[in-house]
Structure formats: structure tokens, C-alpha cells
């Protein structure tokens, strides 16, 4: 009993912080979104979102961009994770540092870098112009491409690290065996490594999708006001129009939407894990 009391005492500041700083505010939001001014349950705020084409378009854009970003992260991330797992320890360390650096840099700083690269007179539009692909003074800012590029840069480390954790545990002798049996390198990658790495791909996708659906600083700076996403709309509603119940209702939709996509996916991953 005494031991339990010691443990409780040690964890007490943590409990207090969790209650006051996290659970109560989050619960408050969930309640605020489904109650009217008198505290009676209502779906007014939710249905206002779900019946307005403007907001439905925002929701659709959020889902679409998040899916594209997740797919890009898988395609770009799997080879990197494989090279990191099979390369030397030194190469692995430097690659981890390279992908952690943007992850640990402030989102405003990273986004600023993209604004310089993609804006009018930036390196990328100028190169495209030199290649004769676009007109002069072309700008990639305020486009969905810009949002996808900026978000993929930050989110793909999450994908790489989750795949890396799984690939590191794959017995290299399995690959060798498949090669001895006559597989080409790429075939053994596709038939042996990829299927075994699926749990990592799923875990990474969950993380990347959730994060990309809830980012708003990068989309609002790179996409601008013409391309609002759900998280950006929550921020606008909360700070510009100060309509907190409606902002709360949009938050509920974000959480429920993410959960609805996550739960089947998590089931899938449990099955993949056996």
C-alpha cells in the first residue's frame, strides 16, 4: 500500500496537468460543439457545417490533400527506409539527422523556405520557365501543389521512421534466401521486404494522415485564403469570427472524421500483424 501511495504521489503533478491542461479543455470543446446557448443538446452547429457546400468543399479538400500527401510519403519514404536499414550505420545516422532537422525546425521557418522557393521569381518557377514549361512570372504559391510539397517535406520523416523500425527487424537472410532461389533484387524487394514492411507502412500512414488533416499553418501560408482546409477554417472561425461553438463543432468533425478513417485502418494493421 505504501508503495502505491508513493507512486501516486510521484505521478500527482502529472495527473493535475493532464486534467487541467488537457482533459478538461478537450472535453469542453466536445461539449461546446453539441450544445446551444442554454446548454441543451443540439446538432445546429454540426448540421450548419454538413449542409453548407462551402464547408463541405473544405472537408473534401482536407481529405483529398491528406490522401495525396500520405501516398507521396509512402512512395518517397519506403525506399529511403530500406536504404537506411541496409546501409552502413554511418549513412543511417546522417540520414536520420537530415530528416529530423526539418522535423525539429519550427513550422513557420520551414514554410517560409517553401514560400521563397515557390513564389514569383523563386528557384522552382524560374527553372520551370527556363525549361519552357510555364510562362514568365509564374508562381506556384496559392496552389494545392505548394501545400502538398510543403506538408510532404515535414510529414515524410514520420513515415520513414515507422517503416525503418519494421524493416530493421526483417531478417536479412530472408532476402538472401529469395535471391538464392532466383529472385532478382527488385523482385525480392517486392515479394519479401514490402509485405513484411506493411505494418510499418500502415502505422506511418495513420500518423501522416492524422497530422496532415490537422495542420493549418503550412496550408494557410502556402495555399492562402482561396484554398482553406478544415484546420485552417477552425482557426479562422475561432479567432476572426470568434464563433467558438461553431469552431468546436468543426473540431468534432475533424476528430470524428480522422477516427472514422483510422479505425478500419487500425483493424487492417492488426490483421497484418497477425
Amino acid at each position, binding site marked *: 500500500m*505504501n508503495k502505491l501511495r508513493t*507512486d501516486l504521489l510521484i505521478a500527482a503533478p502529472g495527473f493535475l496537468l493532464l486534467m487541467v491542461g488537457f482533459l478538461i479543455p478537450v472535453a469542453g470543446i466536445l461539449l461546446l460543439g453539441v450544445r446551444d446557448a442554454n446548454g441543451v443538446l443540439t446538432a445546429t452547429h454540426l448540421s450548419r457545417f454538413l449542409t453548407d457546400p462551402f464547408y463541405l468543399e473544405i472537408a473534401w479538400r482536407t481529405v483529398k490533400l491528406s490522401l495525396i500527401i500520405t501516398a507521396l510519403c509512402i512512395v518517397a519514404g519506403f525506399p529511403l527506409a530500406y536504404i537506411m536499414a541496409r546501409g552502413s550505420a554511418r549513412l543511417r545516422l546522417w540520414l536520420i539527422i537530415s530528416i*529530423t*532537422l526539418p522535423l525539429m525546425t519550427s513550422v513557420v*521557418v520551414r514554410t*517560409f523556405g517553401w514560400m521563397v522557393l515557390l513564389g514569383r521569381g523563386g*528557384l522552382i518557377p524560374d527553372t520551370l520557365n527556363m525549361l519552357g514549361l510555364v510562362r514568365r512570372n509564374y508562381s506556384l504559391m496559392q496552389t494545392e501543389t505548394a501545400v502538398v510539397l510543403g506538408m510532404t517535406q515535414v510529414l515524410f520523416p514520420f513515415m520513414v521512421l515507422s517503416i525503418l523500425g519494421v524493416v530493421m527487424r526483417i531478417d536479412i537472410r530472408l532476402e538472401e534466401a529469395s535471391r538464392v532461389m532466383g529472385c532478382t533484387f527488385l523482385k525480392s524487394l517486392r515479394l519479401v521486404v514490402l509485405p513484411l514492411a506493411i505494418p510499418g507502412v500502415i502505422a506511418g500512414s495513420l500518423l501522416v494522415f*492524422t497530422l496532415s488533416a490537422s495542420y493549418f499553418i503550412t496550408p494557410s501560408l502556402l495555399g492562402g485564403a482561396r484554398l482553406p482546409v478544415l484546420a485552417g477554417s477552425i482557426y479562422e472561425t475561432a479567432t476572426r469570427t470568434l464563433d467558438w461553438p461553431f469552431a468546436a463543432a468543426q473540431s468534432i468533425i475533424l*476528430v470524428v472524421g480522422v477516427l472514422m478513417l483510422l479505425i478500419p485502418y487500425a483493424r487492417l494493421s492488426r490483421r497484418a500483424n497477425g
Partner: protein
Amino acid sequence: MVESAPTSVRIAAVIYLVAIVAFVLGPLAVVVGVSFTAGDYITFPPQGLSLRWYEAVLSSSVYMGAAITSLKLAVVVTISATIIGASVATVIHRGRLPGTSVLSALFLAPLVLPTIIFALGLLIFWSAYFGRTSFAALWIGHTVIAVPYVIRTTLAVLSTSDRYLEEAARTMGAGPWKAILHVVVPQAMPGIAAGAFFAFNISFDEAIVSLFLRSPEVITLPIQIYTQLEYSPDPSIAAASALMIGLTVVLIFVIDRVLGIQRVAG
């Protein structure tokens, strides 16, 4: 033993690696490049070389005020998050409290729940009970976000440590607190230290909670940069950003020395 990969695949792999590293680090390199421009506009490649924008940042009361706010905040967040995170990790590691797995899930929840929802919740909660947002509100918000990182790094070390050492200390007559202070904490130290540096980094760079809870008195450096980006961008943003990147690089190398970045990332 078979040849690991054909030459064509190796060449493709090298090209791919260069492209990926350029994609990931390019935008940061561009920021650093722009910061050394001698011109008046944000251009890359920079026009001429000078340190004038660094001078501008270091002599600007707005930037320096924001930097001081950010530093103060990061220091208090580091202290509170490290103490709370390390204590919670110890308790989770021992697993004696009923429902430990639920507990650890709850404490790690801020990692999974979209930050924007938590930030909005804190804003509404704070306004309802304490009125205007303040430094203390940001302190709580950042601590909540940073604690899971400290828990994870501390647990990573504790899970490989010898749990009988504490019992040995108790048998030899040390009280419960003494055993924790002299046996458990020194054992977990690399994890706690790495967690502390993470906490500092997270608070110093955090923008979502800071944006929701901002008030004219509490503007952090990322928010100052954000505001400037929205309204009047000039190369001083690049200089301030480059200084933040420099700090991050230092922190990454420190974390790597203390715990090994691979253990933290994996």
C-alpha cells in the same frame, strides 16, 4: 552470398538519395541563403553577401522581445515538462498503479490528438475561467505537448535498466524517496536529459498553441515570424529563421551525444 543489388539499382538509389536530401533540406538551406543577402528583398540566390539582416534582427526590439519571451517560456517549460515527464515515466515503468496501460495512453494522447483541437480547447477554457490569455496559459499548453516526449525518452532508457537495483537500495536501508533520487534518477538520466532538450526544442518552435493563445504581451518568436510573413515579409525573417535553425542543429547534436538520435527516433 549473392550480390546485394545490381549496379543500375545502386545508381538509381544514389540519385534518389540526393533528390530526397535536397527536398528535405533544400527549403532550410534557402532560408539560410536568403538571410545573408545584401539586398532589400527576399531573393534566392541572395544578392551580394552581408550580415545586415542579422544586425537588423539583433537590434530590433520586436524580434529581441519575442526571442526573450520564447527563451523564458522554453526554459520554464523544460523544467516543468522534465520533472513531470520523468516522474510519470517512472510510475509507468514500475506498472504498480492499477490501469497503468490506460494511464500511459492518456499521457501520450497529446501526441495523437490534433494539436489544433487541444489549442482551441485551452483557449476557450482559459477565457472562461481566467480571462485574457497569458504567459501562464502558454506555459501549461507547451508543457502538455512536451511531457509525452520526456516520458518516451525516459521510458526508452528505463526499459533497458536493471530494475533490481532499486530493490537492492531499499533492502540496504534507503527510503523510497532516497532510492528514487540516488538510484532510479541517475539510471534514467540520459533519457531524462534527452527529453529535456526535446522539451526545450518543442516549446521554442511551437506555433499552433502559441498562435491560439497569443496576446499582445505574449508573442513568441515563431509567432512574430508568422505575423511578419503574413503582412510584411523582408529578409529579416530569414535571419531570424536562420538563427532558429542554428539552435535546432545544436540541439540535435546534443541529443545525439546524450542519448543517440537513433534511439530517440526509432
